[in-house]
């Protein structure tokens, strides 16, 4: 039997506001435990929450970016559960009336629905020791935007494409640092299968605890395989139940949390400490303003700069890369060479060292200088690669590197002719053979001249001058 995979994703994005969702404590982390806390986020009796305007702003920006409706009225609710990193015993979230509903993003030409995006407060952190746990509440109360997709995704590849698009949008509109390793972009996946052609939804399993794109893909693939096997073995009803499973990246498997979740009953009710949120016309207009989105930028790169669809997509995939590229163009580097030197040469070297563009040892202005030197033939393309290698290791200017490596391209006819004369006189026997018809030797002469120039002669010029000299 052929199966169809049905995936829905829940993404928690930590908003990059300066303060927490309901109090004025800073959201910065890596500070002394429990130092960024106050009576509100410590849930001391009597302390009341006050909503951070900027969190509402960022949620509205997100809604605008994903073509969603912004609810003029939204509400907060209590989700009740016990855990040491949640001092109040409830999380304030938006269950009944989220701020953002009914949007979509386009992923490779398909519309993927975004059912809702709602604001909620993050919990603190537990650090587990051998026989006790430590609790740090610095993160407690940090604003999260939970973005829930429709079950529209049909493969793990598509799920990853969706996540990358979402990640890129969130970075473009600058509502989050969206760093997966640091936990500011977290993903849970709901996975089910069904016989191809069937339209009903079967039992979905929720996978938690996945912190990289690669692991999300593996976790989904593992879970799909497990469900198909259960179906084929006739044990689907017993083995696939609605539950939460944890992904173990070391063993590459998902494991049931059965038992732990059985008492989950969140008893949502309207948060009595907060009134409704109302967005008036003026606020909506101001807060809906967003910068250019990835698709718009890719489109502009094609129409204005003549990039291929592929290059435009690669460069616009992340805001940092797009900015890097635009800075190069703005400082006068040619479009064609900028594309190659950024996407092939620099990114290739960064990938090899596992560095993101944000940690590139070569700035956009430095790469632009290098491209300009290639544009105006000060150096050859080959010399450019050597210089780039050198600059990856040494923090000096492009001019200094050209000087230091002696790679300034020789374009001067007389200088090249002088080298040619030397080479030809040293190899008079070969010149004789060439003249008697052994024309294959031409390549040998070019090689010798290039070698004599230590790679700095303009190869096109060498070819031209050599040809006229030997004719």
């Amino acid at each position, binding site marked *: 039997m052929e199966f169809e995979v049905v995936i829905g994703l829940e993404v928690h994005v930590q908003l990059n506001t300066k303060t927490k969702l309901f109090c004025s404590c800073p959201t910065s982390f890596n500070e002394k435990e429990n130092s960024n806390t106050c009576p509100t986020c410590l849930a001391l009796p009597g302390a009341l929450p006050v909503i*951070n305007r900027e969190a*509402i702003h960022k949620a509205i920006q997100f809604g605008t970016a994903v073509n969603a409706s912004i609810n003029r009225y939204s509400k907060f609710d209590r989700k009740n559960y016990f855990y040491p990193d949640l001092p109040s015993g409830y999380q304030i979230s938006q269950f009944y009336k989220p701020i953002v509903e009914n949007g979509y993003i386009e992923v490779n030409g398909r519309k993927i629905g975004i059912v809702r995006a709602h604001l909620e407060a993050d919990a603190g952190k537990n650090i587990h020791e051998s026989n006790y746990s430590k609790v740090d509440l610095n993160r407690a109360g940090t604003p999260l935007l939970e973005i829930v997709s429709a079950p529209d995704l049909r493969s793990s590849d598509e799920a990853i494409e969706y996540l990358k698009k979402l990640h890129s949008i969130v970075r473009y509109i600058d509502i989050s640092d969206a760093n997966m390793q640091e936990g500011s972009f977290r993903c849970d996946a709901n996975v089910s299968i069904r016989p191809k052609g069937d339209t009903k939804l079967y039992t979905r399993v929720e996978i938690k605890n996945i912190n990289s794109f690669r692991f999300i893909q593996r976790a989904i693939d593992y879970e799909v395989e497990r469900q198909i096997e259960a179906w084929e073995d006739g044990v689907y009803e017993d083995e696939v139940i609605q539950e939460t499973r944890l992904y173990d990246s070391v063993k590459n498997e998902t494991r049931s949390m059965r038992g732990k979740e059985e008492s989950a009953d969140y008893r949502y009710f309207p948060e009595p400490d907060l009134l409704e949120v109302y967005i008036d016309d003026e606020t909506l207009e101001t807060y809906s303003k967003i910068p250019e989105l990835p698709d718009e930028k890719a489109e502009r790169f094609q129409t204005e700069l003549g990039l291929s669809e592929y290059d435009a997509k690669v460069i616009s995939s992340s805001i940092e890369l797009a900015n890097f590229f635009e800075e190069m163009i703005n400082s006068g580097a040619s479009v064609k060479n900028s594309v190659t030197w950024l996407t092939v040469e620099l990114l290739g070297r960064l990938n090899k060292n596992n560095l993101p563009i944000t940690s590139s040892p070569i700035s956009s202005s430095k790469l632009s200088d290098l491209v300009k030197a290639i544009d105006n033939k000060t150096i050859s393309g080959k010399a450019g690669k050597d210089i780039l290698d050198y600059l990856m290791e040494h923090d000096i200017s492009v001019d200094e590197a050209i000087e230091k490596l002696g790679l300034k391209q020789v374009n001067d006819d007389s200088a090249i002719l002088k080298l040619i004369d030397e080479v030809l006189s040293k190899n008079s026997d070969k010149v004789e053979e060439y003249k008697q018809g052994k024309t294959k030797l031409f390549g040998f002469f070019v090689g010798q001249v290039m070698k004599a120039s230590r790679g700095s002669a303009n190869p096109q010029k060498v070819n031209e001058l050599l040809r006229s000299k030997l004719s």
Partner: protein
Amino acid sequence: MVIDDKLLSKLEELSHLKVAPEKREEIKEELSNILNFVENLNQLDTDGLPDKFSMRDTYSHLRDDNIEVDKNIGKSVVENSPKYQDSSFVVPRIV
């Protein structure tokens, strides 16, 4: 509404509280009385009222995103907790 043994057990589980056997009858009766009291609200006819209906005619105040923190608060709360280590609360091992 009547609180029976089954519901009381569920409430114990959800609240992480244990009700002593000799207290069960009393608690069941008290909780039932509370619920009956709240039942009064059902006498109001709320059909046709919009979702956003509220007794108050105002909305949540929104606060500007400016940092204000007193680093001593967290410190003194930690130091007044039953058990702590350095600046962290200490609780029984969770997982």
